[in-house]
């Protein structure tokens, strides 16, 4: 059993050498292994900032507060150390890397996370199987990381990595945006598999309720202007579906 705890987190985005802008204004959240939490909020409320800060993007500076993984402060860790400690961010905008093939990349990542190279035979089989389930064309393994992939293909590859790398906690930043219904189902099934097979904790960040038809959160948090303004069970998502965020904005 693992726990990810965020305590009174204040974060600024670094604009340039001299300027920064406060975005997160005291975020509190605790997730345990196997739990699914949805964070819902309007555009610009700071959801991606929260996700990227947990993963350690250098553009964001923690002003105060803590992010603890099983009691260890991850804000002291480098980006790759956090990933090896069991955190995984499925990015809203996955990065294209010219010249680095998916196959080379996946193997390097798996080796780094496990601390040893995977056995070739099982690894090849695992990758093939996971790609098949996510309906990813086998040719993609020879292509460069995310290069020339459509929006939907990039999202599927994020989930492919989530399944192969088996993190303790998966943070999904608007994985649903830009997906058609078929792709949304495929991607959601991938997340559900990782959740079930690995007892992964899920932090599902979204603007819309659409994905909650396929991934069922036990906890729903409403996020406005850099902090949580409400929380509840799945029924809260239904209310947001009908009413939107209007009642929370300006509070």
């Amino acid at each position, binding site marked *: 059993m693992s726990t990810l705890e965020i305590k009174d987190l204040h974060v600024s985005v670094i604009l340039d050498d001299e300027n920064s802008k406060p975005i997160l204004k005291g975020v509190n959240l605790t997730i345990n292994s196997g739990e699914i939490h949805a964070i819902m909020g309007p555009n610009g409320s700071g959801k991606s900032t929260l996700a990227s800060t947990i993963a350690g993007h*250098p553009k964001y500076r923690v002003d105060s507060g803590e992010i603890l993984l099983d009691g260890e402060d991850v804000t002291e860790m480098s*980006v*790759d150390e956090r990933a090896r400690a069991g955190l995984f961010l499925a990015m809203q905008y996955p990065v294209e*890397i010219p*010249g680095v093939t998916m196959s080379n990349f996946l193997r390097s990542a798996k080796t*780094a996370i496990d601390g040893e190279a995977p056995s070739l035979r099982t690894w090849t089989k695992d990758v093939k199987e996971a790609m098949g389930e996510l309906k990813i064309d086998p040719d993609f393994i020879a292509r460069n*990381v995310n290069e020339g992939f459509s929006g939907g293909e990039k999202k599927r590859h994020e989930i492919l*990595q989530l399944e192969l790398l088996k993190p303790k906690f998966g943070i999904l930043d608007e994985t649903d945006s830009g997906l058609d219904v078929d792709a949304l189902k495929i991607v959601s099934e991938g997340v559900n598999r990782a959740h079930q097979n690995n007892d992964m904790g899920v932090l599902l960040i979204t603007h819309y309720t659409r994905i909650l038809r396929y991934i069922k959160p036990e906890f729903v948090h409403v996020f406005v202007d850099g902090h949580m303004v409400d929380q509840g069970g799945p029924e809260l998502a239904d209310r947001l579906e009908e009413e939107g965020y209007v009642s929370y904005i300006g509070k």
Partner: protein
Amino acid sequence: MSNIENKSHNSPAIPGMTDEGEKLATEQVQDDTIRVEKKTVDTSRAGRPTSYKVEDFAELTGREEDWRFTPLKRLGGLHTDALTGQGVDISVSAPDSVSVETVNRDDSRIGSAGIPEDRVAANAWSSFSEATVITVGQEDELDQHIALQIQGTSMEPTAQHIVVETKPFSKAVVALRHAGSAVVSQNVEFKVGDSSSLTVVSVQEWNDDAIHASAQYAKLGRDARFKHINISLGGNLVRVTPSTKFSAPGAETEMYGLYFVDAGQHIESRLFVDHSVPNCKSRVTYKGALQGRNAHSVWVGDVLIGKDAEGTDTYELNRNLILEDGPRADSVPNLEIETGLIDGAGHASTTGQLDDEHLWYLQARGIPEAEARRLVVRGFLNEIIQQIHIPELEEKLMDALEEELALSNN
């Protein structure tokens, strides 16, 4: 001139490296900076003097257009001294059907593809006593490559001359590998016969003290295919000037280059593609990585499209990746166009650093920073290595690149 396309602002192979890289470059001109210049056509490449005789070229001052980036002091006398040394050994291994000869300087095949365009090349041409001539017979399609090992043995200034001819409808791959220590000026001629196909890989993996000037001339017959891959890794000063001249329509040239420049090294690549006949195609792609104090790369790409060269299709590209503070990369694409009736002409030049977002993505998947850097640089350079198609050479070069990468203090 309506159908001339300037593709300078194409999407970059490394995001964030195009326009900003160029701007950054022209704005800061200090010691350890990146310089990219776009020359407007003032000194036309067409008017450059050519001669086999060293005395027809004025002594170098370093202010000449084609020498302005080269530290003459480090040329080891290649521009001033008689090149009478015996500082390099050449050994050739070739399939049985290939003719390999050592000939005197009055052999009729010498001069069939090239004529020097600078003093150092002319000095070698005036000095060499024997040449190596390699001939691939008509319709002979080789399934093994021809390997030339050029081994430096002493630092006496030396001249070398090599001629490779592929007769019509033949097909060959030639690998020239330079190693050891030497001070050598070289003329290498490639006469690519009608409808023949020649791939040349020239690898400079010299010792740290070597000084090497290499003029490599390709003259292409009708419908010929030429591919040139120029890889410079080792040496104190390495200056390679590959050129392609089209003598009849329908031919294609692809010229690739890779350089990895370490502290104190000067690696220069000056390309020339001479489109003087119609319907020929050229592609130039050079990539370089630089690290360490006073690492200096120079890339100059001259493309000349003459008034009769209708239907020309050309594109040239140079990308430089600066791995740490200290190096300097000069990059000068230069396109001269004398006819509007062409299919396409463009160039791009970028110089930049590793993209932080690439490193972020790889690290976010658990890959440590140093390894993430290596992955990205390897990927950047791999595009050129992949052109070689000689597995054992590709492997050796990848190992050599790994060693270079291990040197960097990243």
